[in-house]
């Protein structure tokens, strides 16, 4: 991690931290919600919490592509939201929606340095990851086979890369939302929330 020792953060360092957070965060959600068999995940230690990361090569490559793209947007400060949508394969219905609101400080340039407590950032990330893990207890069980999709909210004038396409927000009809904790690197701040279908 770029800022593991110093208490000064740059745009690049902040981008790395946030991208790393998403890598582990998305992996955790996929594991915790049982989208992939648990035996395809391995334990890793990061930020003082044990997390499960997929060792399925295909899934790894898929997530890597997203994270790499996300990094460029984080550096451009052009991303506003990252949403992980869980859909039922059979009915194509959205059953769960993990939304991460990303607030970028638009005044930051590549050379800006900010004083920030490394400990606070880690603490923030830890608490979000812990909450993702804990959310299994209240989220409804995904009864059918589900797949996921990543949505990114970006600035209106952004050029859409070739592999990406414009889409709708994939909202859940009749949903309930639970706000999770947030963390901030003083350049990017991430607010997490999960929405799921209300049980009737």
């Amino acid at each position: 991690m770029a800022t593991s020792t110093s208490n000064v953060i740059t745009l690049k360092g902040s981008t790395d931290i946030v991208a790393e957070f998403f890598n582990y965060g998305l992996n955790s959600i996929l594991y915790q919600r049982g989208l992939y068999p648990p035996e395809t995940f391995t334990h890793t230690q990061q930020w003082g919490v044990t997390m499960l990361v997929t060792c399925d090569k295909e899934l790894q490559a898929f997530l890597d592509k997203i994270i790499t793209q996300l990094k460029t947007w984080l550096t451009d400060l052009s991303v506003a939201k990252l949403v992980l949508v869980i859909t039922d394969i059979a009915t194509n219905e959205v059953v769960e929606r993990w939304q991460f609101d990303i607030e970028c400080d638009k005044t930051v340039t590549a050379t800006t340095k900010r004083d920030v407590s490394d400990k606070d950032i880690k603490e923030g990330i830890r608490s979000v990851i812990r909450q993702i893990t804990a959310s299994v207890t209240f989220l409804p069980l995904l009864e059918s086979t589900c797949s996921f999709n990543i949505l990114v909210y970006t600035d209106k004038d952004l050029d859409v890369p070739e592999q990406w396409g414009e889409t709708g927000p994939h909202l859940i009809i009749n949903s309930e939302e639970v706000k999770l904790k947030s963390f901030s690197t003083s350049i990017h701040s991430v607010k997490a929330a999960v929405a799921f279908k209300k049980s009737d």
Partner: protein
Amino acid sequence: MAHFDLENEVNSALRMDMPLTRGPLMRWQRREQGQNNSSINISLNASVASAKTPSKSLNKSLNSGAYSKTPNSKTPGSAGRKKTPSKGSKTPSAADRFIPNRSTTHIDAAHYKLCTQTQPNVEDSLMLSPSRQEYKQLMNENLNGDALQKKIISFNEKPPQAPEGYLNNLRVLYSTSKVGTASKKTTRHISQQPDRILDAPEILDDYYLSLIDWSAQNVLAVALGSCVYLWDASHGNITLLLQQENAGADYVSCVNWTSDGNHLAVGLSTGIVELWDPSQQKRLRSMSGHAARVGSLSWNSHLLSSGSRSGSIHHHDVRVAQHHVGTLLGHSQEVCGLKWSPNGKQLASGGNDNILNIWQAGSGSLLTGAEPIHTFNQHQAAVKALAWCPWQHNVLASGGGTADRHIQIWNCNNGVNLHSVDTNSQVCALLWSPEYKEIISGHGYTQNQLTIWKYPGLTKVAELTGHTARVLHMCLSPDGTTVVSAAADETLRLWKCFDVDAATKKNKSKSVTKDNPSSLLMHLR
């Protein structure tokens, strides 16, 4: 001061010389309002048609749209309500209440605009119904649309699929307590001795037949050579139902009760399937069609499926004269196992060609020459023992013969083999116990035992020995407590291996209703 209010009202109501403050408006008032309202209507409809009020949720804007279609009774939204004058002032000021004028509201145009302004422009729009698209688009505009100046994009590539047949393992997390209680139940006492032993002289020692069946009315039908005997399990009476005329050559190869136990289907070595009424000891029907002996029968309401030595399976609709309504050709040798699933959706057939086929029930009629939805060739010997799980309707247990000795559990919806266990002995019969979630299997050489397996672990719970020759057939009593096994040693043994304990017995009354009118009876006469 509430009581004064009432008094005042009564007084004012009684005073006839005052101007009216309640009741319908005077005509001159209405006319004046009609003129004023036309302008309000137009502005209101315009805002509805554009439907872009960003602060409002979609529901609200849709609702106000609905109001505009039926505007005669209600004041739409907050705009109308704000203008409602206080009770006291009755001066007919301009636009004091909203009374829409139908002639000035362009309902059709508004509706058309509301419906058509949302042209789908998303790639995956093909996957969604029009109403969903519209909802999505409106939601998009209302919530994040132009105010946010954001673009929503998604990664085009699809994430890799979870492996075929993978089910969310988190279910385990929620059912841990159940596992605990189930394992406790396995410690129950299972009597190692048979409850009763009946003689079955001249029972044919033929693996490919099915010679006993226990009805819902607690009557056990046993085919002994050319005769069929009925043993009433409640009273112990024995009656001879039928005897083949050509007793030396012909024999009964299969017996099967209807689900209500009012009729018995009998398969004969001549290839004829007969239908008997045990209450009158009378033959109701004789249905020919098979070229060889009928070794297996299975009912699915009015439809009787029969498997023959020729390898073909016939469907008989016993209600109509032309009973032969379908043929399934999926086996090259004798069909020895045939079972309809409890929900009547799937038919499992096992043959001497070591093949296990799963057939889908057709909608309406069963078509001749249909293909099986699954064909399993994992068994190394004839598949005679077949049993559908009573509580999971897509789960089937099958057992192979001498060369195979395996019990396989299948999910017949996706064709996945769920479990497999080597029994070290020929599997002749299989039954499920819904009470204890167990499977009991009947075996041949070397021990001729009955083995009880815990499901889904497939761990051995108990072994019941006693037969001196291979166990050929097994049936479960209608109350689910007793298993009868027929063996080549010419005995029937009744094992009370699924007896319910006294505590749970109280809660459950599984008595069979005897006055249940037969569904077949209505069709047959």
